[in-house]
């Protein structure tokens, strides 16, 4: 039953490099037909974990089952069924869109009618119909991303790994890329495992895992994590002189007269993270009033996923 339910199951998956423990006993499951977001700072063990799941790196301990196969023992069975779009996907600049897809399709062992059929599918999916003869180098950012995704799904994989697929891409192209991912999930029933540094993208995943220092520190839906993981509340303050307010609040925090975990300037607003909202509001009112800064009544706002993420690993 579990093999049908989960596309990825890891149990105490670990990787050591000499004395350095890159991934430390990581256990998580990814449900089939969902988008699973794998988040963490650079160096937290994201790429190492992903490489073990892809069968590119042998675990030092524990195991990973991909689509029911033990990846360490049956890497070939796994590789046929998964797609991978790496952070620096290679697209041949001199080849046209169609030639690129032909190249990748043949690499996956597709031939004849099946190859043509899959290329047509990839072109339609990636909205590249009419651009078949465009050389790779002339494709704009968003289209390159779509083309790379098209190449990664030519062999009709059940599970797709995407490593920061939208790094450096503008918000409009990123949003349409994500619409495409959901189309794949809804229409084809594929499972997607994705890493990203964009918290607005993480918010679109059905399930998230945060890895930090080689360990999973939290896992759940974005909505659940906002409730369970956020230590403290976010207070938004609108002072008449934000820089002066910032100086006063930082001073007070350093002197212990204001108990907050974080103070950040957001243009004309200041965001404070506090464990005790009532106490913090009282203290900040005192600090600002004494310092002669006027302010509107502060609001407690919904934390962004970034607030939650920072709170979890700080």
């Amino acid at each position, binding site marked *: 039953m579990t093999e049908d339910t989960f596309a990825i199951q890891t149990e105490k998956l670990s990787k050591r490099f000499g004395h350095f423990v890159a991934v430390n006993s990581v256990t998580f499951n990814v449900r089939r037909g969902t988008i699973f977001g794998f988040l963490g700072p*650079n160096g937290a063990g994201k790429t190492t974990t992903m490489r073990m799941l892809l069968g590119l790196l042998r675990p030092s301990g524990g195991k990973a089952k991909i689509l029911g196969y033990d990846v360490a023992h049956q890497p070939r069975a796994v590789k046929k069924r998964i797609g991978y779009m790496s952070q620096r996907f290679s697209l041949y600049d001199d080849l046209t869109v169609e030639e690129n897809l032909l190249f990748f399709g043949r690499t996956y062992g597709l031939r004849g009618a099946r190859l043509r059929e899959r290329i047509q599918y990839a072109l339609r999916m990636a909205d590249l119909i009419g651009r078949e003869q465009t050389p790779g180098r002339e494709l704009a950012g968003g289209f390159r991303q779509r083309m790379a995704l098209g190449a990664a799904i030519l062999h009709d994989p059940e599970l797709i790994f995407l490593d920061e697929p939208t790094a450096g891409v503008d*918000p*409009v192209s990123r*949003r349409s890329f*994500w619409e495409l991912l959901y189309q794949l999930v809804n229409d084809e029933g594929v499972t997607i495992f994705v890493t990203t540094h964009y*918290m607005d993208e993480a*918010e679109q995943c059905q399930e998230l895992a945060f890895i930090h220092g080689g360990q999973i520190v939290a896992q759940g839906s974005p909505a659940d994590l906002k409730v369970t993981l956020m230590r403290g509340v976010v207070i938004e303050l609108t002072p008449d002189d934000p820089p002066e307010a910032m100086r006063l609040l930082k001073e007070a925090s350093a002197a212990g007269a204001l108990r907050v975990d974080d103070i*950040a300037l957001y*243009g004309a607003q200041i965001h404070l993270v506090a464990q005790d909202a009532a106490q913090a509001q009282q203290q900040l009112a005192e600090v600002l009033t004494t310092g002669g800064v006027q302010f509107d009544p502060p609001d407690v706002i919904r934390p962004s996923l970034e607030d939650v993420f920072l709170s979890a690993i700080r």
Partner: protein
Amino acid sequence: MRVSNNPSVIICTTQLSRSFRKIAALRAIDLSIQRGEIFGLVGPDGAGKTTMLRLLAAVMTPTAGQVTVVGHDSVKDAEKIRGQVGYMPQRFSLYGDLSVQENLQFYADIFGVHGPERQRRFEQVLSFAHMSDIPDRRAKQLSGGMQKKLGLACTLIHRPDVLLLDEPTTGVDPVSRREFWDLLTELHLQGTTIVVSTPYMDEAERCNRIGLLFKGELIECGTPREIKALVQGQVVEFHPDRLEVARAVLSHQPGVLEVQVYGTLLHVFVEDATVVWPRLQTVLGEAEVKVDNVRLIHPRMEEAFISLIRRQVG
């Protein structure tokens, strides 16, 4: 063609244009930036953000129009501008084989920072970037986020009044991004003027004002609140059990301004939710779409950006 006499204006462009061969990268930009502002440049890939920063840094000459930075004309007094601005291009060149300290020495030589001031500046920028304990670490051994901080430290070596940063946090994880912005806030509080381009809309929210570039034109400019207020109506967020059907039936309903897909959620922009939403619920019911988790949300910069750009595209 009159340069502003207002002493609080530190950057002023008049009908600023730049073409590459026959392609117009920037068209007739009029922009004033106040001393001490954090000004954010946002826009899709290829909108002209990098060209704009290069023109302000006086490392590129305009095809037409004028740039004045700290009172100097960018064509006649390019050298004077370069001495007073710190420009950090997207691919800032650090020497990987050189240590942190040696990289700083290199930039101090370029900008002519000599004498007793030199050592003091090294100490100041290292302490500022929290790198005082690793002056001998080679640049290539630093994490991505640390390299960005070292890049910023090098850019600050000659005490510039104006900082021009081209996507300084692209590809950097959320923790390092927050740390980088904490450094920018420090500089802002010390009175440095900062112009920064970014693909991250949460960073745009941290600016005093934002300029939205699209196809070489400055289509909007204002505070984050003003920009968000440009997006008409209210946004109803909900989770439909059949997303594609829900999107299709809602897109052409009267009172619906726009429908955006956000993961498994739909964001429906409506004129007045209390009037329109009950009718939409009926429409969804007739289409046999079940909805839950309905709530009214404030559009974030992300939604505003996508909406403003899609309106341009038509």
